[in-house]
């Protein structure tokens, strides 16, 4: 069974349909690359998955549980939305690290706050916090930053900040990790280190949805590729099908623009 099942997602901003019925599904351990030109709706789709936007129609299911139903959207309390959000992690284009906290604290903060809601928090406070701390240190090591634990975001390069942001998103143990153009705000020199980390996650069978303009990377890392244009899915398939044998003329046209450089 697919871990993520998206059916007919729609989103309208001021009378314009930015997403007009998006369908796709993703198996556990797979990574999906979403490609398309700017303004095609890629980012909005990710934001709908993470409930930063509430879609105007369609359904989202995670592991068989319908977590969003466009026919019945008003029934969400803040508490429910918070719980549903934890199925997803999101890495932003602009990192959005918390500037007043160290790299380590950025990774532990949300977990510490969430742990307070556990019934056994009072008795096991020390053990719970130690576990969160240890997990965060391990994640920062995984992204190659174990020597930067006590650095504040402004002391880190963009690539390092983005790697902290990846560790932070992983710390909440999401079922699906989403990336919103994770290297678009970086110098070309720094994109490599971030892409390496994402590639490492793909090798470990992390379920991921990656919105990206790095075509070569999408081709190498993803199991499925979704090409979106004008809020609809133009083509969906394996990297081989999309990049080597695209069926639609719109896909060919888009890819030609990228292969030029």
């Amino acid at each position: 069974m697919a871990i993520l099942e998206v059916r007919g997602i729609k989103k309208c901003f001021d009378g314009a349909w930015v997403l007009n019925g998006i369908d796709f599904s993703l198996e556990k351990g797979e990574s999906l690359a979403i490609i398309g030109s700017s303004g095609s709706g890629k980012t909005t789709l990710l934001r709908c998955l993470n409930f930063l936007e509430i879609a105007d129609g369609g359904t989202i299911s995670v592991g068989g549980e319908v977590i969003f139903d466009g026919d019945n959207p008003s029934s969400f309390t803040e508490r429910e939305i918070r719980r549903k959000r934890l199925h997803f992690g999101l890495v932003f284009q602009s990192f959005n690290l918390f500037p007043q906290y160290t790299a380590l604290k950025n990774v532990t903060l949300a977990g510490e706050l969430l742990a307070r809601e556990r019934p056994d928090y009072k008795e096991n406070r020390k053990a719970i916090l130690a576990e969160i701390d240890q997990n965060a240190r391990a994640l920062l090591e995984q992204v190659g930053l174990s020597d930067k634990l006590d650095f504040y975001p402004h002391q880190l390069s963009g690539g390092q900040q983005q790697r902290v942001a990846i560790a932070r998103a992983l710390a909440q143990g999401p079922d699906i990790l989403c990336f919103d153009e994770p290297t678009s705000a970086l110098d070309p020199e720094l994109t490599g280190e971030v892409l390496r980390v994402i590639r490492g996650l793909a090798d470990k069978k992390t379920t991921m949805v990656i919105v990206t303009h790095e075509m070569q990377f999408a081709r190498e890392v993803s199991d499925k590729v979704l090409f979106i244009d004008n809020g609809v899915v133009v083509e969906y398939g394996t990297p081989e099908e999309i990049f080597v044998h695209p069926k639609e003329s719109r896909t060919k046209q888009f890819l030609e623009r990228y292969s030029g450089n």
Partner: protein
Amino acid sequence: MTFAAVTGKLLEGFGVTCTIFILTLILAIPLGLIISFGSMSRLAPLRWLTKTLVWIIRGTPLMLQVIIVFYGPGLIFGWASFPRIQAVLIAFVINYAAYFSEIYRSGIESIPKGQYEAGQVLGMTRTQIFFRVILLQVVKRIVPPMSNEIITLVKDTSLARVIAVREIIMEAEAFIKLEAIIWPLFYSGAFYLLFCGILTLLFGYIERKLSYFKV
């Protein structure tokens, strides 16, 4: 007139000055936050009401507000008027809260949306996001404009004399009439300079304390 006698009188007045300053600050800082929430509210009528209030308070002289708070209740409604110092405090607190609220609003609105969204996707509540993520960034941003406003407040306290509250300048001026000496006025100025100097050092210290991160 001996230096000691003048000093004694001026210290009395300075006590009143400090009382107005400190109580205004303690009450206006939280009240300003409430007003700023009103001016950023999603409820249009509340927003409109708050903005009108802020417009009236910032658009009229503080001196006028002090006079109205003191004489208004008696002359308009026939009520007992507030004790003088209370009337001064009411006018000052409302006035400064209005100014503070605008500083808070600009500070809160200057924090990028991404900070809220990062908190949201990590499963934090709105309250947690405000207190754990946003607030300290806002504090850092508003320290310079707040320092300005608070230093202005030190000197605005002298407006209390308009309803005969004996703050330091009123005490110093009395020596002109009684003794025909002017130096106590200069002496009173030294109190203000010293006070503002200490505040300037304090705000500098806070700015340095918050310089460990950048927003």
